[in-house]
């Protein structure tokens, strides 16, 4: 730190002092666990006894059926979530953005955001009832159309993962919608006027003006969805416990089970480390190769 920087710190010392408690808490509760996990990833750790075992945990992953199955499942889940996150909320945001009248816009915005306050646990329990093979809403609906051989959804290894994916239908996440709407609001009205004069309306306007202008938001949503999906395990934990078989197993659940059920915290840390590195690499790729600059220059 050079002299100017020190002077700056001294000058704004009270401000830095206010930041200190937050900084300390972040170190204790965010950074310390990460460092601890990195260290324990190379150990056999049962919560009490620690023994250094080199790369043994990482080698065990290759032989772990549950972990391998979880990787394949999480790839499918993440791809699906990315596709959904990049289409339906965007479409809804564009439609809401172009609605005539602020009140109606506001109404729809609220309509999509209100479900955000419902705890995810409640949503999962509702979906459990929807998927109930005997009395569930979905099978009752299918039966009303004369379909008698209804699926057992969560109870069948062939349909369980698909059922997990379908949770949250129609998948217009309020948070993503708000991000897209904020991006659309930031586009200069002059640009829309100029486009209208040039005859760029409807799909043309969407592909040549709105979509390129939203690349920053898209990038953010890609990363957020990626991180959320790779870490998520609530739905499989509550609805299927990773089964039947390992058909809905995800890495988060493998970590949880190993750490808290099997006393293999070292192994769980190793999986966590691999997952973090995986997320980091994908985030770097996303940051480096999906550039928002292109959109700006084209505009």
């Amino acid at each position: 730190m050079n002299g100017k920087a020190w002077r700056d710190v001294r000058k704004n010392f009270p401000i830095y002092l206010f930041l200190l408690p937050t900084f300390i808490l972040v170190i204790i509760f965010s950074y310390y666990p990460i460092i601890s996990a990195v260290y324990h990833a190379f150990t056999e750790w049962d919560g009490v006894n620690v023994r250094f075992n080199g790369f043994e945990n990482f080698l065990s992953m290759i032989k772990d059926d549950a972990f391998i199955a979880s990787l394949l499942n999480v790839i499918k889940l993440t791809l699906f979530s990315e596709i959904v996150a990049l289409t339906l909320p965007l479409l809804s945001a564009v439609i809401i953005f172009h609605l005539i009248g602020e009140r109606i816009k506001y109404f729809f915005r609220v309509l999509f955001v209100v479900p955000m306050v419902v705890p995810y646990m409640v949503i999962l329990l509702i979906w459990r009832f929807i998927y109930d093979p005997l009395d569930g809403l979905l099978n009752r609906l299918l039966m009303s159309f004369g379909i008698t051989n209804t699926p057992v959804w969560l109870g069948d290894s062939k349909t369980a993962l698909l059922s997990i994916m379908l949770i949250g239908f129609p998948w217009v996440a309020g948070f993503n919608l708000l991000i897209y709407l904020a991006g659309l609001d930031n586009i200069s009205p002059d640009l829309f006027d100029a486009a209208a004069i040039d005859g760029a309306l409807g799909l043309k306007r969407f592909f040549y003006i709105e979509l390129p202008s939203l690349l920053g938001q898209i990038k953010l949503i890609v990363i957020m969805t990626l991180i959320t999906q790779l870490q998520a395990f609530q739905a499989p934990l509550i609805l299927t416990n990773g089964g039947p078989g390992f058909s809905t197993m995800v890495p988060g659940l493998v970590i949880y089970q190993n750490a808290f059920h099997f006393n293999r915290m070292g192994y769980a840390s190793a999986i966590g480390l691999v997952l973090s590195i995986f997320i980091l690499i994908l985030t770097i790729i996303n940051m480096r190769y999906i550039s928002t600059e292109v959109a700006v220059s084209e505009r």
Partner: protein
Amino acid sequence: MIRRLSKCLVLVLIFTFFTQLIFAQQKELNIYVGGTYTPSRLMPGTAVREVKGFDPIVEKYQKLHPDVKINYVKQPMGEIRTWLVTQLTGGTAPDICWTQPDFVNEDIGKGWWLNLDPYLEKPNPYVKGNKRWYDTFYPGPLEVWRAADGHLYMILGDQVQVGFYYNKTMFRKYGLSVPKNWASLMDIAKKLKNNNVTPFAMWGADLHQVTWLSGWLTNFYFWPEIEKYDKDGNRWISKTEIAEAIKKGTFAYDSERGIARLKTLKEMYDYAQRGFASANEDLAKRLFLTQQTAMTVTGSWWLLDLTNDPLRKFDFGVFYFPVLDSKTSPLIPDGVPPTNKAAGYGALQLAVTNSAIKGNKVDLATDFLMFATAPQNAGPVIKETGTALPTIKGCTPNPALKPFFESISYPAAPFQEDDSLLDNEFGEKFLAVANLFLGGSISVEEGAKRLQKYAEEAADRVLSLVKK
């Protein structure tokens, strides 16, 4: 003004000093006694029936020891093992804590639980004429959980039992009677299915129900070979003994007996409701309660709740697991005796944790446990909750639990259930594979092959734990 303020400050300091002195003399004990024995008043809105639970014991003990304050730790939300692991790792667990016996035995070498053997050898001062606390318990269920290092880390004050709950009204309608053996149970299931009634409400979301059944079958299919595994001849196959047998290849999931056992299990699940793999205990109970199935398999803890449930519109009964004989498989000899399959599992399962050890409260904690397990104290509490039968001598069981009286008197089942056979990890993998072959996603043979692989890995873990 300043003088007046100083006087006030001095007075406050003196007051604080003396209050601290008084409270410092009061000893505190934190207890978590499990969901069954935590008073309902502490769990508003969650209890099906109002129970006083441990309240009378705590009140009496505090009256007898005015210097002791006992604090309840309420039933934690979520999965109990996760909560326990975090609390024990951090050294913040209650001094006395409810635990599953499997947990304490898997935690050997961590210093999380107190070895109770020296205390069990001492007299229980709260039981007249007692010379050895251990003698106040029925030894069978307690001995089941002697850990691999030869010590007892928890006491067991009661014992649950599981059985088949059946719809008597429905049985009468179709002219059915309580089965005498497994083959007749399957006949009943077939008749019900032919009448478009789903015979069994099953669940596969956790490993309890499936391993009660698979464990029951083990005790018949592997009975003729018990001498091969029971090295110490105590008619109880420990984890070490079974792990050694797996490594030697004398006990195998993919052996003829192993596959036949799994096929018998599958035959039963073919009579279960669709989608049982994702169903949980509550759903299975609901299906039985709403007469969508004729039977379900669950524990003594449901008996009183079901008896009093206003939604129940039928008569019900309970029968114990039917015995298997040569009618089911030529591999099973006739005359294999029924055993007590839930021996060692209860609701009053208490252990002393590392918090008491570190806080120098071991003597207090064990004294409270002695008081709590004295028949005059434990008896009424166990009777009131009515979910389990006492394993403390001199306690009278709740008469409502009569359907379970006989089976509990049987000798302990020699083979442990598949979730307790080796370790918890194997138990989870057993469930994962079982749901696949029971649901028809893979063949029984393929399931047996996968289970054998997981069993061999688990055997290595168990044997390495013993070495430690």
